[in-house]
């Protein structure tokens, strides 16, 4: 059964009735990210589609608030009209997951959905400053607010960001925003092996010239030749200066080509959305680790998972990895490769049967799993919200 509340009070009533019936409840925004996490067994669905609209926008305070079902597109257009943007460049999962529909702002919060800018400007969770959510008692709970600096009480905002609906139904979210840069350029180096490319990115990110995004696309990812990318965003005069300084600093790696405008935007959209892997039959993983360990991890994985291909974002600290689906989509080999290096792996795309059999999120240590189960119960004592979406039994 599909519930489409149009007010918070209605949503509270829907949740209360589900709690009463003790049936698993799926939460849906625009439905563009439904394949994330473990497959669900929900018999009812609540959607934020009836909760839309911007509730607060103060450009001079750099803050925007909206009901959870508000299309992301509306948020981005509203911000752009005043020369602003979301700081964290949220990924669009439609290409990768083969879904349709309109992404919502609530899902950005619920999934902590970020993109290449995360390396410098933080993730969605770093810009999310306030939430309203209905917990598994049918109570409307608020945390945070509309101001950036706020340490009043426990930071439930962070806890809910990236909880994929398992802690409650978000009704409203508030984000800090940033001015849109005057000019954006991308510097591209060619022909670097992974190790050298990550060294280049580390050198750039450790320089005073503030790259806002740093990625490496090995051979065969979007082009025949390997490409190493740095994006600069700033006032125009600064861009010219910083691009020149970076080229000088990194001259040992060759001379970069400078791209801007549509070509630059399109390239970063592909990186953001991992659309190099769109439309294939492969399983897709997302590995998060210390940047200089990136090439070590992929080298180890290449030895044990035939057919693996990958690219790097976040200066090497985020690896998008595509592998053949057969069996468990390389889960054991991938996690074994990460073990000595630190970090963790999340299975982003695979058939339902694989995502049901393989831990989608990295298994946690026993004490942390206990804490995770306790937190789930503290929000959702009857276990109605997206049961098993992140971990079996939670």
């Amino acid at each position, binding site marked *: 059964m599909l519930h489409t509340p149009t007010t918070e009070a209605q949503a509270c009533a829907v949740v209360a009735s589900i709690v009463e019936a003790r049936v698993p409840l799926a939460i849906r925004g625009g439905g563009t990210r439904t394949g994330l996490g473990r497959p669900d067994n929900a018999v009812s669905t609540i959607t934020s589609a009836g909760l839309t609209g911007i509730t607060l926008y103060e450009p001079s305070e750099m803050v925007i608030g909206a009901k959870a079902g508000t299309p992301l597109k509306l948020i981005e257009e509203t911000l752009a009209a005043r020369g602003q943007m979301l700081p964290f460049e949220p990924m669009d999962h439609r290409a990768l997951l083969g879904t349709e529909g309109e992404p919502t702002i609530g899902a950005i919060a619920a999934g902590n959905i970020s993109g290449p800018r995360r390396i410098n400007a933080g993730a969605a969770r770093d810009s999310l400053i306030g939430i309203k959510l209905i917990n598994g008692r049918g109570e409307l709970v608020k945390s945070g*607010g*509309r101001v950036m600096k706020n340490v*009043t009480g426990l930071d439930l905002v962070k*806890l809910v960001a990236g909880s994929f609906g398992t802690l409650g139904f978000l009704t409203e979210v508030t984000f800090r925003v940033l001015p849109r840069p005057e000019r954006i350029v991308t510097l591209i180096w060619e022909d670097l092996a992974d190790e050298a490319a990550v060294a280049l990115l580390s050198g750039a990110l*450790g320089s005073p010239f503030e790259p806002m995004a740093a990625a490496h696309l090995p051979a065969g990812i979007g082009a025949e030749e390997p490409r190493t990318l740095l994006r600069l965003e700033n006032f125009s005069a600064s861009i010219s200066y910083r691009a020149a300084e970076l080229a000088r600093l990194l001259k040992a790696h060759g001379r970069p080509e400078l791209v801007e405008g549509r070509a630059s935007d399109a390239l970063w959209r592909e990186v953001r959305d991992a659309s190099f892997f769109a439309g294939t039959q492969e399983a897709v993983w997302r590995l998060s680790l210390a940047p200089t360990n990136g090439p070590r991890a992929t080298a180890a994985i290449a030895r044990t998972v035939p057919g693996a291909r990958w690219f790097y974002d976040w200066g090497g*600290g985020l690896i998008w990895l595509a592998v053949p689906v057969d069996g468990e989509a390389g889960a054991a080999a991938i996690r074994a490769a990460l073990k000595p290096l630190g970090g963790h792996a999340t299975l982003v795309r695979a058939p339902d049967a694989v995502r049901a059999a393989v831990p989608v999120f990295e298994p946690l240590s026993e004490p942390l799993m206990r804490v995770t189960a306790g937190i789930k119960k503290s929000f959702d004592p009857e276990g109605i919200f997206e049961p098993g979406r992140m971990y079996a039994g939670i």
Partner: protein
Amino acid sequence: MSAIAFPVPDAGILARRDAIIAGLAGLVAPDALITSEDERRPYETDALTAYRRMPLAVVLPSTTQEVAAVLRYCGEQGVPVVPRGAGTSLAGGAIPQEDAVVIGVSKMNRILEIDYANRVAKVQAGVTNLAVTGAVSADGFFYAPDPSSQLACSIGGNIGMNSGGAHCLKYGVTTNNVLGVTLVMLDGSIVEIGGGHLDAPGYDLLGLIIGSEGQLGIVTEATVRILRSAEGARPVLFGFPTSVEAGAAVAAIIGAGIIPVAMEFMDKPAIEICEAFAHAGYPMDCGALLIIEVEGSEAEMDAQLARIVAIAREHGVGTVKESKSAMETAAIWKGRKSAFGATGRIADYICMDGTIPTGQLPFVLERMDEIIKGYGLRVANVFHAGDGNLHPLILYNCNDPIEAQKAEDAGNDILKLCVEVGGCLTGEHGVGIEKRDLMTVQFNEADLHQQQRVRAVFDPRWLLNPAKVFPLEGRIAA
């Protein structure tokens, strides 16, 4: 001053003091256990010195394992624990109680690892904030959060309170700059949360721990982000006739798409106090001062400043004075960062920490003035203008109990005002005991109960820093 209540000490624990101390003595090195009254005295308060309580005992472990042993023991014995970093909390976050053991991390003060390629440092919780920057500054790096107490305050305390500072407009607060912690839980389990990578598997426990005021466990180590310093930084002083023009200029600068690395506001009393202390060359003929810092190459700073100065002129700025040397820059920041200390030389004060939407600035400043005058007191205002985090310093005489009470009442009125206009009780100092009883102004019962239920996952019996954050009445266990 005695307006803030403490829980009645547990007589059973007080009666068992000798046995508890004997138990602790078996767990840590002899010099890590402090029991004599004289030696416990420095731990009876923090930077909220109006309140003091003598703890049962103080333990200063040297290792995570010692912290684990002591926490497990206290948990088993049902003895409250008050975690302590450097004891610089302005909110009373580290003030003990008579039936509690203080666990201080001050001996755990080593920097364990610096990794420039991955831009992180691993440090023990007792390392001071400034020592992290000190360890990497020769190589051109820094640790971004910079609370005014950074010379003394510890990373562990910063994590407990999610501390900010003057430069978080651009670089964020503690929670945006910590990637991992080693956390000891009440049952003695040691867990690693996060590490060298940028996002969490599962729930964002790191985000929950940071700012939890020592109520979920004790952090003994942290992996923090270190950033490459800009090529140069230059603070500029802008003297405005009144705070109204200064506030409007701040909004206009942000509206023009410029995010300076810092925008600090001082009113006339604050300017006078800080100038007398630091001789920073602050303009004395203005009603409100903005310190705006820009970063980058010389040419970049010139270009950004030209834009900012043009906006400031549109808003009636009087004096514009750029720092011309590293010494002048140091003096400008010394003046601002010693605002609390300098104020302490001329009067007792309590320091508020509410945040407001910056658009409400003129209204709040006017209302605040009325509130303070209504109590017959004086106030000096310093604050982080870019993010609306106010620090009114309410001046009073601590030897006059009536005036002390008025100061607390005025402070409470100001914080309620902050919440009324859409802000919050505390932007970077934490709730501690100071704002605990105002939590119901900002949160309703459902909000507070949800927080307490999460808290109970870690500490169902209210043993960890129990007198803090949540009102003593109406607490729930799970």
